[in-house]
Each structure stands twice: as C-alpha cells, then as structure tokens.
C-alpha cells in the first residue's frame, strides 16, 4: 500500500521511476559521446575511493613513496588501524548514539508531524513557521548557547550531560527537517481513511498508530537512515561536548587518529575505509530510499 502513495516533497520525486520507455534498438553507439562524459564523471567520483582502498593495503614505504598500487596487499593494516584508533569503542559509541537519537526522533517527530498534518489548533501556522525558521540558523550560532545549556542541565540535573549520551542525542531528537518530511507524507494519506476510522470510533492516537504509521513505513525508513548518517557524521558538536573517549563517536575518533597516525598514510587510509564502510554498505543496500529521500527533502542528516 505504501508504495502506491505518491511521494511527498518539494520537488515531486519520480527519480527512481523516471525511466523512459525502451525502444529495443541498441542506442549505445549513438550515445558514445554521452557515455564518454558520463564515464568521466563517474571516474572522478570513484577514483578517490579506489585510491583510498589502494593506499590502505600498502606498506609504509609504498604509502609514503607515492606508489599507485600495493605490491602485495597488507590486510593487517586494517587490524593495526582498528586497534590503534580504538575503533571498537568508537563504533559502539556511534551505534549507541545513533540508536538513542533515532528512537527519540521517531516518537517525537511522528507525534508533531501528525499534529501539523491532521489536527486543527490555534497557532498552527505560527508554530510551523517558527519550526521552519530553525532551518535558517547556521550551526555556528547554536554552538555556544547549546553548549552552555547542556552543561547547565548536566550540572543541576541528576545525570551529567557532557561526556555522556544526553548531550550527544537529546538536542537531535526533534528536527524541523524530520517533522517537515513526515508531515508531507502524512498529508498525502487520503482523508477518507480518517473519516472511516472516525466512524469506527478511533481517536487521533489510535488512527496514528494503527493506520498512519503502517502506511508511512517508507518515510520512517528514510528518517531512520538520515538519523543514522547524521549521528555517524557529526563532528563539531561531539568535539565540543566530549572531552573523554567514553562516548566519543567514530568520526571524532578517526579525526583524532589522523593526527596521531601522522605520516602513516596506509593506516590513515585503512581507518578511513573502516569509518566509511558501514555507511557505504548501508547506502548500496538502500540506495533507492536514500536518493529519493534526499531528492524529496534536499538534506543530509
């Protein structure tokens, strides 16, 4: 059912279905020039990744001597990098942070998005524009205030926030982007469903849980993906709120490792592959959701 619904969004995305009808004739030859340009673009996009993998398998002299390919693959670079950069801890941290953030985000944003999409209340437009206004704020302006707020909450509250999960997760549990994305999706659900649910005696909460959420699996999936990527990629905020490695996420861990590893490019690149691998694997498995989600909302977590 969810697949038959139109996609929400700024630009109606028929990204995945924009395929033109095939005419059966082999057109590859006619399109030689086109392919040349497209291949060039693909090459530019992919070469840095290939180079990363190549250097990650070199030994020290090859890596620093400017070789293009390793003479014999040094798989143990990955083990060295994993242990030296303490990736076990950072991976676990990032996964914990992502899980907590996404769980909170799903609950809070679903409720808020439903209220904006389906309910009538005074001040709806005002609250919605206030919400969208937060999108304009540059990250730089929230660093100082949020750092102070988070330290304050940690010092007066029962648990510390700095160097702990609340500082890294709570501020990201509700975002204007997620609420906007879900609201767009909820608004596409036909009104008749609500009318018939009402006749059956369902209230808003039951309608949301029993009908809206099952229908919006695709949108929620997008939200989970973006939440995961966002948590995985965060750098500035973790630098500000983690002074110990206990809850430091993988991006910050690897960033610190680049400095520590110094001129050991092979280890740096092995670490780079380790850092990127989960996201890239996830991307290849879910690339349709990914690309459509980004095309509809124009964002990265």
């Amino acid at each position, binding site marked *: 059912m969810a697949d038959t619904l139109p996609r929400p969004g700024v*630009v109606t*995305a028929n*990204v995945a279905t*924009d*395929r*033109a009808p095939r005419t059966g004739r082999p057109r*590859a030859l006619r*399109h030689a020039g086109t392919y040349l*340009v*497209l291949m060039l*673009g*693909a090459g530019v*996009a*992919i070469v*840095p*990744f290939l*180079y*990363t993998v190549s*250097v990650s398998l070199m030994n020290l002299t090859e890596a620093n*001597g*400017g070789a293009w390919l390793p003479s014999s693959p040094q798989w143990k670079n990955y083990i060295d990098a994993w242990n030296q950069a303490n990736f076990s801890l950072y991976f676990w941290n990032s996964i914990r942070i992502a899980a907590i953030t996404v769980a909170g985000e799903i609950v*809070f944003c679903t409720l*808020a998005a*439903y209220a*904006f999409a389906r309910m*009538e209340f*005074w001040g709806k437009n005002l609250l919605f524009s*206030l919400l969208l206004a937060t999108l*304009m*704020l*540059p990250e*730089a*302006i*929230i*660093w*100082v*205030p*949020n750092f*102070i707020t988070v*330290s304050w909450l940690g*010092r*007066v509250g*029962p648990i510390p926030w700095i160097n702990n999960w609340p500082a890294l997760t*709570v*501020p990201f549990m*509700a975002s204007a982007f997620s609420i906007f994305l879900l609201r767009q999706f909820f608004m596409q659900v036909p009104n008749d469903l609500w009318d018939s649910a009402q006749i059956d005696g369902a209230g808003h909460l039951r309608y949301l849980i029993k009908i809206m959420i099952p229908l919006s699996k695709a949108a929620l999936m997008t939200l989970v993906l973006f939440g995961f*990527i966002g948590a995985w*990629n965060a750098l*500035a905020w973790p630098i*500000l709120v983690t002074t110990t490695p206990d809850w430091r996420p993988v991006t910050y861990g690897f*960033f610190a490792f*680049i400095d520590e590893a110094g001129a050991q490019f092979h280890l740096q690149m092995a670490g*780079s592959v380790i*850092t*990127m691998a989960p996201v*890239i694997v996830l991307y290849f498995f879910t690339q349709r959701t990914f*690309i459509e989600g980004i*095309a*509809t909302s*124009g964002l990265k977590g």
Partner: protein
Amino acid sequence: MSDALLTGQETPTTLARQSTSSAERRGLLSGRQGRRVREALLAYLFLLPAFLIVGLFGLFPLLFAAFMSTHRGLNKIPGAFTGLGNYVQAVSDFTYLLGFWGAVILIFIALRAIKRGVAAAKEKGDSFWRWLAPGMAFGVMVLALLAWIIRLLPLLLDIPNQMRGARNTPENFRRLLNEALTSPEPFQWLLLAACSLLVGAAATWLVVRSRNRRHGHENYSGAFTLATILVGLAGIVGWMTWVELQGNITASLASGGLNIGAQMTLISAGFVLLWLSWRLWQSASHRSSMMSVGLRLGGAAALIIGAWVLIAEAPRIIAQGDAKWWYALLATFYYSLGTIPPQLVVALVLAVLLFQEIRGRGFFRVIYFLPYIAPFVGTAAVFKIIFSNRPTAPVNEILGFFGIPPLGWINEPQGILNLLTPGVQLPVWAAGPSLALVVIMIYGVWTFFGFNTVIFLAGLGNIPREMYEAAAIDGAGRWPQFRYITLPLLSPTMYFLTLYSVIGTFKAFNHIYVLRTGAALGTTDTASVVIFQTFQRDTRYGYASALAILLLLVIIVLTVANNRLAEKRVHYG
C-alpha cells in the same frame, strides 16, 4: 492564548472540515466546540516533546546567542556586560552602520506589515484599525516575555556555581530555582507579560463582540503584534547602538582622531547610491529606445562611481576591525563563488545527459551520489593525501609527468594570483583564495555535484514530455528544446539549489575543519571555522556569539537578495 478558542473564532478551513462530518453536523454548537477544544489540547500534547527540544536547542539559542554576544570574558558564563563591544571589536565602526540600518529595516518591515494588513482588510471590507489594541497588547506580551528570559538568564546561569560539592542536591536546586524565578527584577517583566495578555484577551473579546456580523470575520491583530515586536526590537538595537556610539565618540574625540559620524554618513550615502543605480539599471531593461537605455545605463554607471568613492572610506574601517574575521568572510565568499557555479554546471550537464534513453542510468546515479553520501572525514582524509605538498603526492606526480614542479596544495597559504604571477607580490585581499582553499573548493565540488545531479534529475522528471513532443513536431532541434523548454522549466529547481548551496557554503564547517592544515596559516578558515576556534580553543564565548550573529546577518541578506533576484526569473508552471 486560549482566548481565541473560547471566543469561537473559526478559520474557514476548520469550518469546511467540520461540515464534512455528518456526525458533527447534528451536534449542538457547544458540543462541536468542546470537540474542537479537545482536539486542540491533544494537538498541543502531541507537539509538546518536539517543541521542548526544538525550542530549547533550536529557537532559544538565537536569543541566548544575542544575549551572550553582549558579554565579554575568557571562559566566563555569561561574563561582563559590554554592550556592542564585541561587535565593535569584530567589525569596528561598521557596528554603528549595522545598528542604525538594522533598526531602520526593522521599522520598515513593521510598517509594511501594517500596510499589507490595511490592503487585505480593505479588499474584504473589514475594519482593520480596531485590532490595534489587542495586537499591540500581544506584541508587548512577547517583548515582555523576551525581557523576562533575558533578565532571568544570568540568575539561572549562576545556579550551578552555588551547587558545588555537598550542596549539589535536588532540594538545593529547587530552592535556588525558586529564588531565581521569584526574584523581583525579572518577575516584574513576567507580570507585565501577564497583564498585557489579559489586556489583549479583553480587547480581542471586545472587538469580536462589537464587530459587524456581516463584515469583519478576519483577525488582523497579527500584523499589529508583529509590528510592535519589530519596533520594540528596533528600539533595543537603536538604543544599544546609540550608547555604544556615544562612548566611542568621546573616546575618539579625546584622542583627536577620526569622525565616526561622518564616516557613517558617507558609507550609508554610498550604499543608497548603489541601490539607486541598481534601480536605474533595472528600469533600463524595460525601455525600448536605445537613447533612454543608454542614458539610464550611463546614469547607473555614474552613480556606481559615486558610491565607490564614498564606500572607499570602508577600507580604513576594515583595517580597525578584526583582520582574521574579515579574512574569514572573504574566504567564505571565495569558497561560495568557487564551488556553487562549477557544481551547478557540472550537475546540469550530467543530469541532462543522464535523462536520455540510455542504459545504466541507475548505475551512474548511484556512483555520482557516492561522494555525497560517504562520511566526509573519510573522503577529506584522502583528499589531504592526494593534495599534499609531498613531491610524491598523486597530484604532484601528475604535474611532474608534464614537467611542472610540485606545488604545496593543501599546505599552500599563498593566493593563487600570487602563484600565477611569481614576480609580483599582491596584497592579501587581491591575491585571490589561497591554493589550500582552492583544494577545499575542489573537494566541495566533488562532494556536492552528485547531490545537485539527483535534484536536477527530479526536476527534469517533472517537465511534461508532451512539451518536447510538441516542440519536436514544430521542428525544434535539441538545443532550442533545451534552451526554451528545459532551462525555463528547470528554473525552480535551479533556484532551490542555488539558495540551498549559498546557505550551505556559508554554514560549511565539517570538511573545512578536517582539511585545515597548520601550514596553510589559517587561509582556509571560513567564518564557521573562525567562530568554532574562537569558542572552542580561545573560550571567548561572548565574542564567538557576536561573530555567529554577524554570520547569520550575512546569510539573511544573501537569502533575501537571492529571493529578489529569483522572483523575476523563476517560472512556475
């Protein structure tokens, strides 16, 4: 807040929605109203958690940053009050210019809101001015609430200091919080807010009761509320500017130096001339005779020269400001200019090529998107190695293949124009972006072209195929089709991407921070990076906040300018 619910104002949408349900039509008015109140309460309950978080970590920071920016001190929260001192330190006398024109613009927006309200009311035959009292009362309420928060903040920020060690108990916290909340100075603002809420509610009730049933169903208090808030803010900005200016005039007169008043007037006049020339330039495009077009363009050029002479006062002021901050703004502009046009052009070409009946488009799309989706620390680390200054770095090896000596790339602080003209040493502002910054631009284009391609593809998918078919029947070739169908119909997408990229490049932090090297001597530090360093390394909270607010102003100006430019060029439909 709930007064509107109780007085029974109904927006057309609620009415329409409710009349669709036959169950409701049978109910009495009170029953229907009870249902609406219950729905609204449930909606507020649904919104509560999200708005607690967004409010505390997304909206409140703006007010908090504004508050912090008026305080100074190292590693002190909030530090000592300094008025606009931080701004003066960053951009020197431009602060007064910004303060003055900021206040003027706020008042202008307030007047425009009222003007629009008048026009809207006139069209519907409603009475507008009777909403003045309730609107103003609500505006005063918002201002009083803001004042309450600002007054309460220092007291709240002090609580942790009184809870050190053994006194760190929940009871103690509750006591201190209670003390702060009931302390008289902030409390009087809360009282004022409550009073204006009551006044506003009463006034609304009176207006609703007395209005003519046949006319005047719309509520126009919003325009007055907005106008009151804006005028209040303008007053605060203007007053702070005036206080700062007075202190500074005395200081500069004592040292027998420059005349701030004259400088301000000159530069303001310069900008007014620039604006006039822009208007003239625009009006030239509507004229048909060569003569009048020529005259107008000539006039515009003359005005630009005049403006330039007046604005030439600016360098002297810039020299007194924070050189690092000015350079950071310049670097941000370079970064924006150096990444957005190339990535849009590349993406447009690739998207148009991909949007043909060819095999493997899914494959190409997946590949193009890879740089965007891959974690930026990983890819930035590779770029740091590919573009390093070692002779054996990949780029330098390629240069060596063509017999070119190795370059410093990511470690090169020299401006590119200086590198191209080895004999002449240009000053910093004329030397262009440093080679290190150019590498970061290359990284930016590499990361974002795939994203732009995907958005362009979505935009191309929205163009009806029939238009191309019709054009083909009329004998239009591929280029005319592209020029007269694709480009105009793609303009909304183009507009979205430009706005998104401009804001994005001005916010950019992460990859620039990772690609930063000591050897580049800070030439790659864009505005966000400088703010981060000021905060994280130097612990100058107040100054960092002031810089962040200046950055926000730049972003707002660019957004408005972008919207203005796009207004006439974007085709919808």
